[in-house]
Protein backbone atom coordinates (compact mmCIF):
# COMPACT_ATOMS: atom_id res chain seq x y z
CA UNK A 1 0.00 0.00 0.00
CA UNK A 2 2.66 2.41 -1.05
CA UNK A 3 0.60 5.38 -1.99
CA UNK A 4 2.50 8.65 -1.75
CA UNK A 5 0.83 11.99 -2.25
CA UNK A 6 2.87 15.05 -3.00
CA UNK A 7 1.56 18.52 -3.76
CA UNK A 8 3.23 20.96 -6.09
CA UNK A 9 2.38 24.50 -7.20
CA UNK A 10 0.45 25.30 -4.11
CA UNK A 11 -1.49 28.57 -4.31
CA UNK A 12 -4.01 30.29 -2.11
CA UNK A 13 -6.61 31.65 -4.46
CA UNK A 14 -8.20 34.51 -2.56
CA UNK A 15 -10.53 35.42 -5.39
CA UNK A 16 -12.23 32.06 -5.42
CA UNK A 17 -11.61 31.50 -1.72
CA UNK A 18 -9.80 28.25 -1.97
CA UNK A 19 -6.42 26.62 -1.82
CA UNK A 20 -5.43 24.90 -4.99
CA UNK A 21 -2.58 22.57 -5.74
CA UNK A 22 -1.26 20.03 -8.21
CA UNK A 23 -1.19 16.56 -6.67
CA UNK A 24 1.42 14.01 -7.64
CA UNK A 25 0.52 10.45 -6.71
CA UNK A 26 3.13 7.71 -6.62
CA UNK A 27 1.76 4.20 -6.84
CA UNK A 28 4.53 1.95 -8.08
CA UNK A 29 3.39 -1.46 -9.16
CA UNK A 30 -0.32 -0.74 -8.92
CA UNK A 31 -2.97 0.41 -11.33
CA UNK A 32 -4.13 4.01 -11.43
CA UNK A 33 -5.56 4.97 -8.09
CA UNK A 34 -9.25 5.87 -8.24
CA UNK A 35 -10.32 9.37 -7.34
CA UNK A 36 -12.27 8.33 -4.29
CA UNK A 37 -9.22 6.83 -2.65
CA UNK A 38 -7.21 9.98 -3.14
CA UNK A 39 -10.12 11.99 -1.78
CA UNK A 40 -10.23 9.85 1.33
CA UNK A 41 -6.53 10.22 1.88
CA UNK A 42 -6.70 13.98 1.60
CA UNK A 43 -9.68 14.05 3.92
CA UNK A 44 -7.82 12.22 6.64
CA UNK A 45 -4.77 14.44 6.11
CA UNK A 46 -6.69 17.68 6.44
CA UNK A 47 -9.52 16.46 8.66
CA UNK A 48 -12.26 18.17 6.65
CA UNK A 49 -14.05 16.05 4.14
CA UNK A 50 -16.77 17.94 2.36
CA UNK A 51 -14.90 20.95 0.99
CA UNK A 52 -12.20 18.95 -0.77
CA UNK A 53 -12.50 18.38 -4.50
CA UNK A 54 -10.11 16.42 -6.69
CA UNK A 55 -10.25 16.02 -10.44
CA UNK A 56 -8.28 15.67 -13.65
CA UNK A 57 -6.08 12.70 -12.84
CA UNK A 58 -3.89 11.53 -15.66
CA UNK A 59 -1.46 8.66 -15.46
CA UNK A 60 2.02 9.07 -16.88
CA UNK A 61 3.48 6.83 -19.52
CA UNK A 62 4.72 3.57 -18.04
CA UNK A 63 2.55 3.73 -14.95
CA UNK A 64 3.47 4.36 -11.37
CA UNK A 65 2.72 8.05 -11.31
CA UNK A 66 -0.43 10.09 -11.67
CA UNK A 67 -0.91 13.83 -11.68
CA UNK A 68 -4.12 15.67 -10.88
CA UNK A 69 -5.54 18.77 -9.26
CA UNK A 70 -6.97 19.32 -5.84
CA UNK A 71 -8.88 22.20 -4.29
CA UNK A 72 -9.88 22.93 -0.72
CA UNK A 73 -12.55 25.57 -0.27
CA UNK A 74 -12.95 27.83 2.71
CA UNK A 75 -16.48 26.77 3.35
CA UNK A 76 -19.27 24.80 1.75
CA UNK A 77 -21.14 27.92 0.67
CA UNK A 78 -18.21 29.14 -1.36
CA UNK A 79 -17.77 25.68 -2.80
CA UNK A 80 -21.36 25.62 -3.96
CA UNK A 81 -21.05 29.03 -5.53
CA UNK A 82 -17.75 28.58 -7.26
CA UNK A 83 -17.64 25.01 -8.37
CA UNK A 84 -19.03 23.78 -11.67
CA UNK A 85 -22.15 21.77 -11.17
CA UNK A 86 -20.96 18.41 -12.42
CA UNK A 87 -18.19 18.39 -9.81
CA UNK A 88 -20.65 19.13 -7.09
CA UNK A 89 -22.87 16.37 -8.42
CA UNK A 90 -20.05 13.89 -7.97
CA UNK A 91 -20.17 14.64 -4.30
CA UNK A 92 -23.93 14.56 -4.39
CA UNK A 93 -24.24 18.19 -3.48
CA UNK A 94 -26.23 18.94 -6.56
CA UNK A 95 -29.01 17.24 -8.45
CA UNK A 96 -29.63 18.08 -12.05
CA UNK A 97 -32.86 17.85 -13.94
CA UNK A 98 -33.66 14.41 -15.27
CA UNK A 99 -35.78 15.52 -18.23
CA UNK A 100 -34.09 14.85 -21.52
CA UNK A 101 -33.46 17.54 -24.08
CA UNK A 102 -35.73 15.93 -26.63
CA UNK A 103 -38.66 15.99 -24.24
CA UNK A 104 -38.11 19.60 -23.39
CA UNK A 105 -37.92 20.64 -27.03
CA UNK A 106 -41.08 18.72 -27.79
CA UNK A 107 -42.96 20.49 -24.99
CA UNK A 108 -41.74 23.84 -26.18
CA UNK A 109 -42.85 23.17 -29.75
CA UNK A 110 -46.25 22.11 -28.60
CA UNK A 111 -46.71 25.25 -26.62
CA UNK A 112 -45.65 27.36 -29.54
CA UNK A 113 -48.34 25.89 -31.82
CA UNK A 114 -51.00 27.59 -29.74
CA UNK A 115 -49.86 31.06 -30.75
CA UNK A 116 -49.70 32.90 -34.02
CA UNK A 117 -46.94 34.99 -35.57
CA UNK A 118 -45.06 37.30 -33.21
CA UNK A 119 -46.77 35.91 -30.15
CA UNK A 120 -44.70 32.79 -30.60
CA UNK A 121 -41.68 34.73 -29.38
CA UNK A 122 -43.38 35.28 -26.05
CA UNK A 123 -43.42 31.59 -25.27
CA UNK A 124 -40.79 31.00 -22.59
CA UNK A 125 -38.96 27.78 -21.85
CA UNK A 126 -40.63 27.51 -18.46
CA UNK A 127 -43.92 25.87 -17.73
CA UNK A 128 -46.50 28.41 -18.89
CA UNK A 129 -50.22 27.85 -18.84
Amino acid sequence: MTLTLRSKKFMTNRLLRRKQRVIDVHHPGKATVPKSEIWEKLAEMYKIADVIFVFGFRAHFGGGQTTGFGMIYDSLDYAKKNKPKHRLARHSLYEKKKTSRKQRKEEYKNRMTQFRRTAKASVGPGKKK
Partner: protein
Amino acid sequence: MAAPGNLAVLESDLQSAVTLLKNLQDQVMAVTAQVQALTKKVQARAYPTEKGLSLLEVKDQLLLMYLMDLTHLILDKASGGSLQGHAAVLRLVEIRTVLEKLRPLDQKLKYQIDKLVKTAVTGSLSENDPLRFKPHPSNMMSKLSSEDEEEDEAEGQSEASGKKSVKGTVKKYVPPRLVPVHYDETEAEREKKRLERARKRALSSSVIRELKEQYSDAPEEIRDARHPHVTRQSQEDQHRINYEESMMVRLSVSKREKGRRKRASVMNSQLHSLTHFSDISALTGGTPHLDEDQNPIKKRKKIPKKSRKKTGFRRRR
Protein backbone atom coordinates in the same frame (compact mmCIF):
# COMPACT_ATOMS: atom_id res chain seq x y z
CA MET B 1 74.48 61.41 31.95
CA ALA B 2 73.58 58.96 29.14
CA ALA B 3 74.99 55.47 29.28
CA PRO B 4 78.06 54.77 27.05
CA GLY B 5 75.95 52.51 24.71
CA ASN B 6 73.58 55.34 23.98
CA LEU B 7 76.45 57.65 23.29
CA ALA B 8 77.77 55.34 20.55
CA VAL B 9 74.30 55.20 18.93
CA LEU B 10 74.07 58.96 19.07
CA GLU B 11 77.49 59.33 17.44
CA SER B 12 76.59 57.11 14.45
CA ASP B 13 73.28 58.91 14.11
CA LEU B 14 75.05 62.22 14.10
CA GLN B 15 77.21 61.11 11.17
CA SER B 16 74.20 60.11 8.98
CA ALA B 17 72.34 63.25 10.03
CA VAL B 18 75.17 65.46 8.83
CA THR B 19 75.36 63.69 5.43
CA LEU B 20 71.58 63.93 5.04
CA LEU B 21 71.56 67.64 5.77
CA LYS B 22 74.29 68.15 3.21
CA ASN B 23 72.25 66.28 0.59
CA LEU B 24 69.24 68.33 1.45
CA GLN B 25 71.14 71.53 0.97
CA ASP B 26 72.41 70.49 -2.45
CA GLN B 27 68.93 69.47 -3.59
CA VAL B 28 67.37 72.66 -2.33
CA MET B 29 69.88 74.68 -4.28
CA ALA B 30 69.14 72.71 -7.48
CA VAL B 31 65.38 73.09 -7.06
CA THR B 32 65.68 76.82 -6.42
CA ALA B 33 67.69 77.21 -9.59
CA GLN B 34 65.09 75.35 -11.60
CA VAL B 35 62.16 77.26 -10.14
CA GLN B 36 63.87 80.54 -10.82
CA ALA B 37 64.47 79.57 -14.45
CA LEU B 38 60.81 78.53 -14.81
CA THR B 39 59.55 81.76 -13.28
CA LYS B 40 61.68 83.77 -15.71
CA LYS B 41 60.24 81.81 -18.64
CA VAL B 42 56.65 82.25 -17.48
CA GLN B 43 57.21 85.94 -16.98
CA ALA B 44 58.61 86.13 -20.49
CA ARG B 45 55.26 84.71 -21.78
CA ALA B 46 56.78 81.52 -23.16
CA TYR B 47 53.70 79.47 -22.14
CA PRO B 48 50.48 81.16 -23.26
CA THR B 49 47.48 79.35 -21.76
CA GLU B 50 44.53 81.57 -22.68
CA LYS B 51 43.39 79.36 -25.52
CA GLY B 52 44.01 76.05 -23.77
CA LEU B 53 41.67 73.74 -21.89
CA SER B 54 40.30 75.45 -18.82
CA LEU B 55 40.40 72.20 -16.85
CA LEU B 56 44.13 71.95 -17.25
CA GLU B 57 44.51 75.62 -16.28
CA VAL B 58 42.56 75.00 -13.10
CA LYS B 59 44.71 72.00 -12.32
CA ASP B 60 47.86 74.06 -12.82
CA GLN B 61 46.69 76.75 -10.45
CA LEU B 62 45.62 74.26 -7.84
CA LEU B 63 48.93 72.43 -7.94
CA LEU B 64 50.82 75.70 -7.57
CA MET B 65 48.75 76.69 -4.56
CA TYR B 66 49.36 73.26 -3.07
CA LEU B 67 53.09 73.66 -3.45
CA MET B 68 53.04 77.11 -1.92
CA ASP B 69 51.15 75.93 1.12
CA LEU B 70 53.44 72.96 1.47
CA THR B 71 56.56 75.10 1.41
CA HIS B 72 55.00 77.43 3.98
CA LEU B 73 54.45 74.44 6.24
CA ILE B 74 57.99 73.19 5.77
CA LEU B 75 59.33 76.64 6.62
CA ASP B 76 57.32 76.78 9.78
CA LYS B 77 58.34 73.28 10.80
CA ALA B 78 62.00 73.86 10.02
CA SER B 79 62.07 77.00 12.20
CA GLY B 80 60.71 75.00 15.09
CA GLY B 81 57.01 75.84 15.08
CA SER B 82 54.27 73.26 15.44
CA LEU B 83 51.73 72.34 12.77
CA GLN B 84 48.83 72.05 15.16
CA GLY B 85 45.82 73.99 13.90
CA HIS B 86 47.88 75.65 11.16
CA ALA B 87 45.69 77.42 8.62
CA ALA B 88 47.78 76.07 5.75
CA VAL B 89 46.87 72.48 6.70
CA LEU B 90 43.19 73.16 6.11
CA ARG B 91 43.93 74.81 2.79
CA LEU B 92 46.03 71.84 1.78
CA VAL B 93 43.28 69.40 2.62
CA GLU B 94 40.80 71.42 0.59
CA ILE B 95 43.03 71.58 -2.46
CA ARG B 96 43.78 67.89 -2.20
CA THR B 97 40.08 67.00 -2.16
CA VAL B 98 39.39 69.12 -5.21
CA LEU B 99 42.26 67.51 -7.09
CA GLU B 100 40.98 64.05 -6.28
CA LYS B 101 37.53 64.95 -7.52
CA LEU B 102 39.02 66.25 -10.74
CA ARG B 103 40.71 62.98 -11.48
CA PRO B 104 37.70 61.17 -13.09
CA LEU B 105 37.04 64.23 -15.25
CA ASP B 106 40.59 63.97 -16.37
CA GLN B 107 40.02 60.34 -17.34
CA LYS B 108 37.04 61.26 -19.43
CA LEU B 109 38.88 64.01 -21.26
CA LYS B 110 41.90 61.82 -21.90
CA TYR B 111 40.88 61.10 -25.48
CA GLN B 112 40.43 64.75 -26.40
CA ILE B 113 43.65 65.82 -24.74
CA ASP B 114 45.59 63.12 -26.54
CA LYS B 115 44.13 64.20 -29.82
CA LEU B 116 44.98 67.84 -29.23
CA VAL B 117 48.50 67.02 -28.19
CA LYS B 118 48.95 64.91 -31.29
CA THR B 119 47.66 67.72 -33.48
CA ALA B 120 50.00 70.16 -31.82
CA VAL B 121 52.96 67.88 -32.27
CA THR B 122 52.43 66.66 -35.82
CA GLY B 123 50.81 69.80 -37.17
CA SER B 124 47.80 68.12 -38.77
CA LEU B 125 46.12 64.72 -38.76
CA SER B 126 46.19 62.25 -41.63
CA GLU B 127 43.04 61.31 -43.50
CA ASN B 128 42.66 57.84 -42.12
CA ASP B 129 43.32 58.75 -38.54
CA PRO B 130 40.71 56.99 -36.39
CA LEU B 131 40.92 59.87 -33.92
CA ARG B 132 39.19 62.03 -36.49
CA PHE B 133 35.92 60.17 -36.52
CA LYS B 134 33.49 61.94 -34.27
CA PRO B 135 29.84 60.99 -33.98
CA HIS B 136 27.49 63.22 -35.94
CA PRO B 137 24.00 62.91 -34.48
CA SER B 138 22.71 65.28 -37.14
CA ASN B 139 23.37 62.55 -39.70
CA MET B 140 20.88 60.28 -37.97
CA MET B 141 18.06 62.76 -38.20
CA SER B 142 15.83 62.21 -41.18
CA LYS B 143 16.01 64.95 -43.76
CA LEU B 144 12.47 64.25 -44.97
CA SER B 145 10.07 65.92 -42.58
CA SER B 146 10.70 69.53 -41.70
CA GLU B 147 8.48 69.35 -38.60
CA ASP B 148 10.93 67.01 -36.88
CA GLU B 149 13.78 69.41 -37.50
CA GLU B 150 11.87 72.31 -36.06
CA GLU B 151 11.02 70.32 -32.97
CA ASP B 152 14.62 69.33 -32.49
CA GLU B 153 15.76 72.93 -32.79
CA ALA B 154 13.26 74.11 -30.27
CA GLU B 155 14.32 71.35 -27.89
CA GLY B 156 17.96 72.26 -28.34
CA GLN B 157 17.31 75.87 -27.50
CA SER B 158 15.29 75.12 -24.45
CA GLU B 159 17.92 72.73 -23.19
CA ALA B 160 20.60 75.34 -23.72
CA SER B 161 18.68 77.82 -21.65
CA GLY B 162 18.72 75.30 -18.89
CA LYS B 163 15.03 74.83 -18.16
CA LYS B 164 12.78 71.97 -19.10
CA SER B 165 10.22 73.16 -21.62
CA VAL B 166 6.76 71.93 -20.79
CA LYS B 167 4.94 71.35 -24.04
CA GLY B 168 2.06 73.80 -23.94
CA THR B 169 0.11 72.49 -26.90
CA VAL B 170 -0.03 68.72 -27.37
CA LYS B 171 1.13 68.05 -30.90
CA LYS B 172 -0.69 65.49 -32.98
CA TYR B 173 1.15 62.22 -33.39
CA VAL B 174 2.44 61.91 -36.92
CA PRO B 175 3.51 58.37 -37.77
CA PRO B 176 6.84 58.03 -39.52
CA ARG B 177 6.52 58.13 -43.27
CA LEU B 178 7.94 54.86 -44.46
CA VAL B 179 8.10 54.04 -48.11
CA PRO B 180 5.76 51.14 -48.83
CA VAL B 181 7.37 48.24 -50.65
CA HIS B 182 5.48 46.23 -53.18
CA TYR B 183 4.93 42.59 -52.23
CA ASP B 184 5.97 40.54 -55.14
CA GLU B 185 6.85 37.02 -54.05
CA THR B 186 6.55 34.78 -57.02
CA GLU B 187 6.54 31.01 -57.07
CA ALA B 188 10.20 30.95 -57.99
CA GLU B 189 11.16 33.04 -54.99
CA ARG B 190 9.13 30.85 -52.70
CA GLU B 191 10.93 27.83 -54.07
CA LYS B 192 14.26 29.52 -53.51
CA LYS B 193 13.39 30.32 -49.92
CA ARG B 194 12.28 26.79 -49.27
CA LEU B 195 15.48 25.47 -50.74
CA GLU B 196 17.50 27.85 -48.61
CA ARG B 197 15.76 26.68 -45.47
CA ALA B 198 16.24 23.05 -46.42
CA ARG B 199 19.92 23.71 -46.98
CA LYS B 200 20.30 25.27 -43.57
CA ARG B 201 18.54 22.36 -41.97
CA ALA B 202 20.70 19.89 -43.86
CA LEU B 203 23.89 21.64 -42.80
CA SER B 204 23.03 21.18 -39.15
CA SER B 205 21.98 17.57 -39.46
CA SER B 206 23.87 14.80 -37.73
CA VAL B 207 25.52 13.45 -40.89
CA ILE B 208 27.16 16.72 -41.81
CA ARG B 209 28.06 17.45 -38.22
CA GLU B 210 29.89 14.19 -37.87
CA LEU B 211 31.76 14.81 -41.11
CA LYS B 212 32.78 18.21 -39.81
CA GLU B 213 34.00 16.75 -36.55
CA GLN B 214 35.98 14.15 -38.40
CA TYR B 215 37.90 16.60 -40.54
CA SER B 216 38.28 19.57 -38.23
CA ASP B 217 41.21 20.07 -35.91
CA ALA B 218 39.20 21.50 -33.07
CA PRO B 219 38.97 19.36 -29.94
CA GLU B 220 35.87 17.29 -29.49
CA GLU B 221 33.35 18.86 -27.15
CA ILE B 222 31.03 16.73 -25.08
CA ARG B 223 28.13 18.79 -23.89
CA ASP B 224 25.89 17.45 -21.21
CA ALA B 225 22.94 19.57 -22.16
CA ARG B 226 19.31 18.80 -22.85
CA HIS B 227 17.93 15.49 -23.97
CA PRO B 228 19.62 14.61 -27.26
CA HIS B 229 16.41 13.47 -28.87
CA VAL B 230 14.34 16.48 -28.00
CA THR B 231 11.75 16.76 -30.71
CA ARG B 232 9.14 19.30 -31.49
CA GLN B 233 6.51 16.98 -30.12
CA SER B 234 8.18 16.63 -26.75
CA GLN B 235 8.59 20.37 -26.49
CA GLU B 236 4.92 20.87 -27.26
CA ASP B 237 4.03 18.29 -24.68
CA GLN B 238 6.10 20.07 -22.09
CA HIS B 239 4.43 23.35 -22.95
CA ARG B 240 1.02 21.74 -22.61
CA ILE B 241 1.84 20.23 -19.25
CA ASN B 242 3.05 23.57 -17.94
CA TYR B 243 -0.11 25.27 -19.06
CA GLU B 244 -2.35 22.65 -17.53
CA GLU B 245 -0.62 22.75 -14.20
CA SER B 246 -0.63 26.48 -13.90
CA MET B 247 -4.23 26.95 -15.04
CA MET B 248 -5.58 23.91 -13.19
CA VAL B 249 -7.53 22.70 -16.18
CA ARG B 250 -7.28 19.71 -18.47
CA LEU B 251 -7.11 20.52 -22.16
CA SER B 252 -8.74 18.29 -24.69
CA VAL B 253 -6.56 16.58 -27.25
CA SER B 254 -7.73 16.71 -30.83
CA LYS B 255 -7.48 13.78 -33.21
CA ARG B 256 -4.57 15.29 -35.06
CA GLU B 257 -2.71 15.87 -31.87
CA LYS B 258 -3.30 12.28 -30.84
CA GLY B 259 -2.02 11.07 -34.19
CA ARG B 260 1.09 13.19 -33.90
CA ARG B 261 1.82 11.96 -30.43
CA LYS B 262 1.38 8.37 -31.45
CA ARG B 263 3.70 8.81 -34.38
CA ALA B 264 6.33 10.46 -32.20
CA SER B 265 6.20 7.78 -29.54
CA VAL B 266 6.28 4.98 -32.09
CA MET B 267 9.36 6.49 -33.71
CA ASN B 268 11.13 6.73 -30.39
CA SER B 269 10.32 3.23 -29.29
CA GLN B 270 11.49 1.55 -32.48
CA LEU B 271 15.07 1.38 -33.66
CA HIS B 272 14.07 3.66 -36.48
CA SER B 273 16.39 6.47 -35.57
CA LEU B 274 19.42 4.23 -35.84
CA THR B 275 19.23 3.75 -39.55
CA HIS B 276 17.23 6.73 -40.74
CA PHE B 277 19.06 9.99 -41.05
CA SER B 278 17.81 13.46 -41.71
CA ASP B 279 17.45 14.72 -45.20
CA ILE B 280 20.49 16.26 -46.86
CA SER B 281 19.14 16.26 -50.37
CA ALA B 282 19.27 20.05 -50.35
CA LEU B 283 23.04 19.79 -50.49
CA THR B 284 23.34 16.79 -52.75
CA GLY B 285 20.51 17.67 -55.09
CA GLY B 286 18.44 14.49 -54.85
CA THR B 287 14.74 14.08 -54.12
CA PRO B 288 13.66 15.16 -50.65
CA HIS B 289 12.42 12.61 -48.15
CA LEU B 290 10.94 13.62 -44.84
CA ASP B 291 11.98 13.84 -41.23
CA GLU B 292 9.76 12.05 -38.71
CA ASP B 293 8.13 14.89 -36.88
CA GLN B 294 7.53 17.15 -39.82
CA ASN B 295 4.30 17.33 -41.69
CA PRO B 296 4.17 15.84 -45.17
CA ILE B 297 4.65 18.35 -47.94
CA LYS B 298 1.25 19.14 -49.34
CA LYS B 299 0.84 20.49 -52.79
CA ARG B 300 -1.21 23.63 -52.80
CA LYS B 301 -4.57 22.82 -54.28
CA LYS B 302 -6.92 25.45 -55.55
CA ILE B 303 -9.89 25.10 -53.21
CA PRO B 304 -13.02 26.12 -55.13
CA LYS B 305 -15.25 28.43 -53.19
CA LYS B 306 -18.61 26.81 -52.96
CA SER B 307 -21.58 28.27 -51.19
CA ARG B 308 -21.91 26.30 -48.01
CA LYS B 309 -25.34 24.86 -47.67
CA LYS B 310 -24.55 22.58 -44.81
CA THR B 311 -22.51 24.44 -42.21
CA GLY B 312 -22.99 21.79 -39.59
CA PHE B 313 -20.43 19.21 -40.47
CA ARG B 314 -17.29 20.71 -41.95
CA ARG B 315 -15.18 18.29 -43.85
CA ARG B 316 -11.68 18.12 -42.51
CA ARG B 317 -9.01 18.44 -45.12
